């Protein structure tokens, strides 16, 4: 049942004009896609995956242009088409959806107007027909009550709904090909599951081909038929999805798949890493672009760029190892290298169940942000960002805090650090209530608790040298000054795997992963006992994320640190945390040690959350619990159990009574009425 090819990209090369002249954003991208097929283009930041998508549509910014290659669509070469002609194809035959649905809809027009617009451009409809089509489309993408919703503005919708509107626009003219550029990256995992489900269903209904651009291997495994792996602007591997995950042919693909933590990853072993970071466009390595980071690289890899070798079952790989004549050279390296042994195992956890000693105790902590209105700024309500949270952190342990955006997990972290003031409840550190600390005492206490942030860009002051950044805490506490200060900064840099010579550099000279290491070094300067890691690896590329996770584990062993690890990524939390708290709308709904939470999730929300996470393994087709709707507004939380509006098991009691925390087994607590 060979299906017809609808788009074939051949040797596509796109260049961008920069201050330093032209640089290649993508080079020699080649692939095809058939009718009804889903092809995933997967790669890390800077791999050129989005540029590829935009080049097909000729939607590049004015500084970018296609330098060579072909994009054949229905026997037309899109790369050479005039602006006028490509406009007839855009939206009509090839449509596109983008990553951030907030910024991708015009904020000044209603969604009905924006859907109508594409119909007006391509189809000759009477106003009544167009009206009907808009309502049809809204219904199709699962936006109920279209008659009123069409008059909503984008800012009045949730992220998930906005992405549904984007899909409605894309599918309005029934295109043959849909290009989805990171369509679910900006969304929460439960909403992602909804959107992926919708895309699949629409594809089944209309037979649309989908090019799915993503960095998430889980999404790839779930959606794709075939996969194009891109690295540094070029295709390194092309394969069917099953073959790719079972037997990756390119070292990059192999390393990438192995570096993602999964539910079944051994927590005691370090993660596989890819050393270094993705090269920037200006510093492209010679030869094979992956060679500086490749475990197998030999002489030839550094000198000559490999061609795309075609392998059996329609696969290809851009690696010299696939060149039969060179097999000998690599044989040697494959034999001597045992990949696992080269990465040092982290020391055993300082934390063991036997010697639990409480470091921090949170009791019924609340944070209400007032909603002010009127002339005198009267308080008319409150956003209950954190609404009665209790947990404890033991010495040397990692406590994971997971939940979707807006659940209050970051606020919790900041409350513990006293970066925000608590509305009610208490936080005891070493048995003393933190609220009692004032002035000097508070300053002393701050030495013991530090924070690592998500965004490696805004977390370092761009005007300060790395030495000044890291040693600022030393200066504040008068621990060290002058050359001693700089020497300490150098030591801290070495501790996090950078060079002590870096103290005189500025933040812009480092990559995201390196900046994250600098952020960690700064947090360690005062020799703290507790680190709050607020989405500390979420902004990093997968290959770099593993490095940082390993570093955090290593430091914990060496320095007997305790972590509060806040994340939305369940698999990452599973890997790093000893125990996990699941938050929903300002409350903890379930607490358990990580193994128990994953093997025996009990709260309906935890179960839904776990089932929503795409697994980077296409052979697993798990039963998915799709939650309806979005997270409610924390300013107006539902009565009773806050989750009852989305819970398929909700009963009468859930609407009226707030559930108590019930002990399931030792250390496993659940707040749900349905559990006995």
């Amino acid at each position, binding site marked *: 049942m060979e299906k017809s090819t609808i788009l074939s990209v051949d040797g596509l090369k796109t260049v961008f004009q920069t201050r330093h002249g032209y640089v290649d954003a993508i080079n020699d991208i080649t692939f095809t896609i058939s009718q009804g097929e889903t092809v995933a283009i997967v790669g890390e930041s800077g791999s050129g995956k989005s540029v590829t998508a*935009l080049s097909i*549509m000729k*939607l590049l*910014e004015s500084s970018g242009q296609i330098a060579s290659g072909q994009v054949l669509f229905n026997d037309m070469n899109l790369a050479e088409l005039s602006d006028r002609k490509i*406009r*007839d*194809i*855009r*939206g*009509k035959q090839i*449509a*596109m959806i*983008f990553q*951030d649905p907030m*910024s*991708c*809809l*015009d*904020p*000044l*027009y209603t969604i009905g107007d924006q859907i109508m*617009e*594409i119909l007006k*451009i*391509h189809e000759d409809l009477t106003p009544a027909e167009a009206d009907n089509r808009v309502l049809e489309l809204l219904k199709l993408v699962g936006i109920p009550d279209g008659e009123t919703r069409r008059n909503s*503005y984008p*800012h009045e919708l949730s992220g998930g709904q906005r992405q549904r509107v*984007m899909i409605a*626009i894309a599918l309005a003219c029934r295109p043959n090909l849909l290009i989805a550029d990171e369509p679910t990256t900006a969304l929460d995992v439960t909403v992602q599951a909804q959107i992926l489900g919708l895309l699949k269903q629409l594809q089944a209904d209309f037979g649309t081909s989908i090019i799915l651009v993503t960095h998430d291997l889980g999404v790839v495994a779930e959606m794709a038929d075939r996969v194009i792996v891109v690295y540094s602007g070029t295709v390194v591997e092309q394969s069917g999805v099953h073959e790719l995950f079972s037997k990756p042919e390119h070292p990059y693909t192999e390393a990438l798949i192995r570096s993602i933590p999964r539910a079944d990853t051994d927590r005691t072993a370090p993660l596989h890493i890819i050393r270094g970071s993705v090269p920037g466009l200006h510093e492209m390595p010679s030869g094979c672009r992956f060679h500086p980071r490749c475990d197998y690289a030999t002489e030839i890899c550094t000198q000559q760029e490999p061609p795309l070798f075609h392998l059996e079952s329609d696969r290809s790989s851009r690696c010299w190892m696939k060149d039969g004549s060179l097999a000998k050279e690599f044989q040697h390296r494959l034999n001597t290298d045992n990949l696992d042994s080269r990465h040092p195992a982290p020391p055993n956890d300082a934390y063991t169940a036997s010697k639990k000693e409480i470091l921090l105790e949170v009791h019924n902590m609340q944070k209400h942000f007032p909603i002010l*209105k*009127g*002339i005198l700024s009267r308080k008319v309500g409150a956003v209950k960002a954190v609404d009665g949270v209790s947990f404890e952190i033991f010495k040397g342990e990692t406590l994971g805090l997971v939940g979707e955006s807006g659940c209050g997990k970051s606020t919790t972290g900041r409350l513990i650090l006293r970066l925000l003031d608590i509305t009610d409840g208490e936080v005891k550190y070493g048995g003393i209530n933190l609220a009692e600390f004032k002035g000097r005492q508070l300053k002393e206490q701050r030495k013991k608790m530090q924070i690592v942030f998500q965004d490696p860009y805004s977390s370092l002051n761009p005007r300060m040298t790395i030495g000044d950044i890291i040693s600022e805490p030393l200066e504040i506490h008068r621990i060290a000054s002058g050359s001693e200060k700089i020497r300490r900064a150098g030591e801290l840099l070495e501790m996090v795997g950078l060079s002590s010579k870096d103290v005189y550099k500025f933040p812009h000279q480092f990559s995201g992963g390196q900046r994250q290491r600098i952020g960690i070094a700064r947090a360690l300067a005062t020799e703290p006992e507790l680190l709050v890691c607020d989405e500390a690896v979420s902004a990093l590329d997968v290959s770099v994320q593993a490095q940082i996770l390993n570093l955090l584990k290593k430091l914990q062993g060496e320095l007997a640190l305790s972590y509060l690890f806040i994340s939305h990524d369940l698999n990452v939390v599973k890997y790093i945390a000893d125990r996990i708290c699941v938050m929903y709308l300002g409350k903890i709904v379930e607490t358990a040690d990580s193994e128990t939470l994953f093997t025996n999730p009990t709260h309906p929300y935890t179960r839904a959350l776990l089932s929503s996470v795409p697994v980077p393994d296409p052979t697993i087709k798990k039963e998915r619990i799709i939650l309806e709707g979005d997270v409610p507004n924390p300013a107006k939380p539902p009565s009773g159990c806050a989750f009852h509006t989305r819970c398929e098991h909700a009963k009468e009691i859930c609407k009226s009574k707030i559930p108590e925390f019930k002990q399931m087994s030792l250390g496993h607590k659940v707040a749900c009425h349905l559990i006995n």
Partner: protein
Amino acid sequence: MVNYVIKRSVYGLIVLLIMISFVFIVMRLVPGDVVALQLSGAGAVSEEQIAQLRSELGLDKSVWAQFLDWTKNAVTGDLGKSLWSKMPVTTLIAERITVTLQLAFMAITMAILIAIPAGIYSAMKRNTWIDHMIRVIAIGGLSIPNFWFALLLIIFLSLFFGWIPPLGYQSFFSNPIVNLQQMILPALVLALSLSASIVRMTRSSLLEVLHADFIRTIRAKGAKEKLVIMKHALRNSLIPVITLIGLQVGFLLGGTVIIESIFSLPGIGSLIFEGVTKRDYPVVQATVLVYGALFMIVNLIVDIAYGWIDPRMRPD
């Protein structure tokens, strides 16, 4: 909505109060007072005469008492009488404000009509010679002092065309042609720097919006460039332009002082100028109040325009 209006009015009143008390107090604390000025031509004056004039003008009370009196009267609409001409201040202002308002209105209209299209054109033809030319003219317009430009225009028209704007002032309703002949030059001069800044803001704001993600969505729909710019980019780029116009109206009103004096137009600019030099307290206070009120009105119009353009900025 009602809440919003009340909140705005309260803020407005606070601002006006701060403004007027500053003017009120500073004027009376700074050396050189109106009594001395009025008696300066009378030769030798006795203490009694001074005291008498002082109480005649109501200046014998403490500053606070004067301020309270004035505020009480101001609330009822009585802004006092000029200390020199003894005319009610409200009458003086009513006579002159139409001139200034007409001038400002003509200047703003001209500036908008010229500058916004020029800004759009400049952005669309980015980095072409015409874009460069528009930008050069714009920055030149910002740098040329308007009173010098006014003098040059007069010299140029009289030397080469022998034309001088008709002297005196006629209101638009009594003689529209003469009125326009008198007003067109000063309005043009005032419009120069305003349009220069509007051109620059329109251009840069439009270029910035053209980089926004949603513009790509619209292009991905297959829309023509005209639709992209005229329907989407332009409207999205108007907010900063309107903010700028709101702020620049202040500059423009300030500029009227000097332009009115060059073209001998009897507006409130020249009223306050005379008032300050002669220490005519009630006139100055009332005129400042009028400027403050104009500023509030402009702000209100700007806010309404925001809401009209951007649904996110509509008060709920």
